[in-house]
């Protein structure tokens, strides 16, 4: 035998739990002797599992110069039969991605993606509008039972959290403004602040944000799961329209329920404010009388109109994200997240638009 030959022996059981160190040693032995032939003595090998097979395969396939080959000796024929003989190229990870993108191209692609998402949303809203218009004149098209059950889940069950948040919001605003106004002896005008803020803005806004987190996410997850389970495909192949079947009941329920919740938030918000101002020596009767002069019915109605539009936007976004769900559990989670984030962004944007439109 050639003196220069390096021998490395594999013995006993080579399994997933022992192969790590053996592999590292063997790789070192190969690397230390780049131009000497290597013999791997496998005659005392008792057992190998799939990882052992991979080890021997890896040692054999190394690209080494002529005269420095790796030879495996004494491998039991039944084990040798397991060593695959396929082309190593098949095992390489396929190249992915191609060339990297430049900054301008990335900005362009991101812009296009946003624009097409907005276009899809608008198309979806238009489709919903068409479906609703078609449904209204014909009896039995809208599934009112479904509308009621969605309204109960999204509305009635949300009452406690809306009450809590509405009340605390009234308390906080009254307290914060009250502390400042006290220094100027203008505590009575805090009533105006609380009234306008709660009725025109915060009642609807906070209710919508709660609704987005609670119900928008639920819509996306429910419809998304139905999409993943191919229930949506089943609806389509029955010749039914998923918009009418799944989306319209949710849209209608949301448009009805968010304003109702907002009324509750308004009432407890103002009550919270009154409670705090009682501490600033403004009694309930005085509060009430001043409030009547400070806010009008139009403030209340503006809040309700906003609430209805927020409800429509949240439900539409939730349903659209649900229907756009890909496949698998992960995409349901992504849809729910995206529904909440997009809803909240749109609530604020719509609120801004509303305020500007009404003021001008």
């Amino acid at each position, binding site marked *: 035998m050639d003196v220069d030959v390096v021998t490395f022996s594999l013995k006993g059981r080579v399994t997933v739990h022992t192969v790590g160190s053996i592999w590292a040693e063997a790789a070192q032995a190969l690397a230390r002797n780049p131009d000497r032939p290597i013999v791997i003595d496998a005659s005392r090998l008792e*057992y190998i599992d799939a*990882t052992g097979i*991979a080890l021997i395969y890896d040692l054999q396939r190394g690209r080494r110069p002529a005269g420095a080959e790796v030879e495996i000796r004494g491998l039991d024929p*039944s084990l040798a039969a397991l060593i695959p003989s396929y082309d190593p190229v098949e095992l390489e990870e*396929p190249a992915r991605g191609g060339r990297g993108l430049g900054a301008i191209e990335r900005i362009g692609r991101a812009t296009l993606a946003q624009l097409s998402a907005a276009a899809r949303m608008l198309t979806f809203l238009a489709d919903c509008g068409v479906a609703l218009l078609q449904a209204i004149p014909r009896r039995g098209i809208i599934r009112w039972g479904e509308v009621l059950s969605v309204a109960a889940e999204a509305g009635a069950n949300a009452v406690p959290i809306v009450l809590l948040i509405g009340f605390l919001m009234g308390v906080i605003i009254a307290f914060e403004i009250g502390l400042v106004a006290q220094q100027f002896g203008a505590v009575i005008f805090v009533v105006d602040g609380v009234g306008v803020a709660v009725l025109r803005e915060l009642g609807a806004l906070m209710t919508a944000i709660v609704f987005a987190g609670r119900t928008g996410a639920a819509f996306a997850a429910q419809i998304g799961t139905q999409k993943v389970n191919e229930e949506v495909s089943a609806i389509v192949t029955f010749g039914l329209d998923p918009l009418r079947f799944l989306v319209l009941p949710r849209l209608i329920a949301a448009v009805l329920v968010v304003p109702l919740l907002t009324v509750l938030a308004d009432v407890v918000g103002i009550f919270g404010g009154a409670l705090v101002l009682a501490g600033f020596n403004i009694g309930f009767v005085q509060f009430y009388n001043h409030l009547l002069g400070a806010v009008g019915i139009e403030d209340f109605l503006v809040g309700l109109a906003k609430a209805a539009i927020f409800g429509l936007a949240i439900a539409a976004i939730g349903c659209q994200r649900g229907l756009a769900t890909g496949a*698998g559990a*992960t995409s349901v989670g992504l849809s729910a997240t995206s529904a909440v984030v997009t809803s909240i962004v749109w609530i604020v944007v719509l609120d801004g638009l509303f305020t500007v439109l009404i003021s001008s």
Partner: protein
Amino acid sequence: MDGDEATANAPTTPAVSVRDLKIGYGSRVLLEGASFDVWRGEILVILGGSGCGKSSLMKNMIGLYQPMAGDVLIAGESIVRAGSTQRARLQRGLGVMYQAGALFGSLTVLENVRFPLDEFTDIGLEQKNLIARMLLHQVEMADAQSLMPAELSGGMLKRAGIARAMALGAEILMLDEPSAGLDPITAANLDRTILGLRDSLGLTFVVVTHELQSILEIADRAVMLDADARRIIAEGVPSELRDRSGDERVRQFFNRRPDAPAISRGS
């Protein structure tokens, strides 16, 4: 009754031993008095009509569900009465493929197969990738290694699931309906893979299936359950069950003849 052929070159402890097992959900009993052994290097098939409790039996055997009574021994140790640490150790020695593959949706196929190696071994990343690719190659999934599970067909999910079940070098593999829903060629290849792994590595297989062709091809022994009888109604070599069973239900199953004169209705 099952020891004769297997004891020749197998140790005396069965790889899996099911003792007088009673399983069910709530108060509904699916199966009672089930006893059988799986010997090392054997391919045992659990078969029976839909809804007879095949998959539930397997889930009891791997310690996922607690049986109503009886015991399951893995290499002589009870998985039913084991504490949580000991049960986890016993379960790591089992490779399990679930009906729909049960791949993790957030990982690629390659990462799914590599997952047990990442968790339990100190093998380098390059090497782990090589092992995972070779396992995938074995189930003819090498081309799909960078896809996400959501992008795979049902058969591909199963095959990737088998590759993942083998990753930790488990000597006992439990496969829940591996060839259901696969095309005949892929199913035959899978059968060949199972036979090859048994012959070369001496792995033990417990396969839940009702694919006749596959049963006759791979099974050393079969255990047949029946939904109405709620017990094991036959045990033996599949071809003998088919040709010589005294039980009408067994012959009906193997000959695919639900309309033959029957004691109870066929599957």
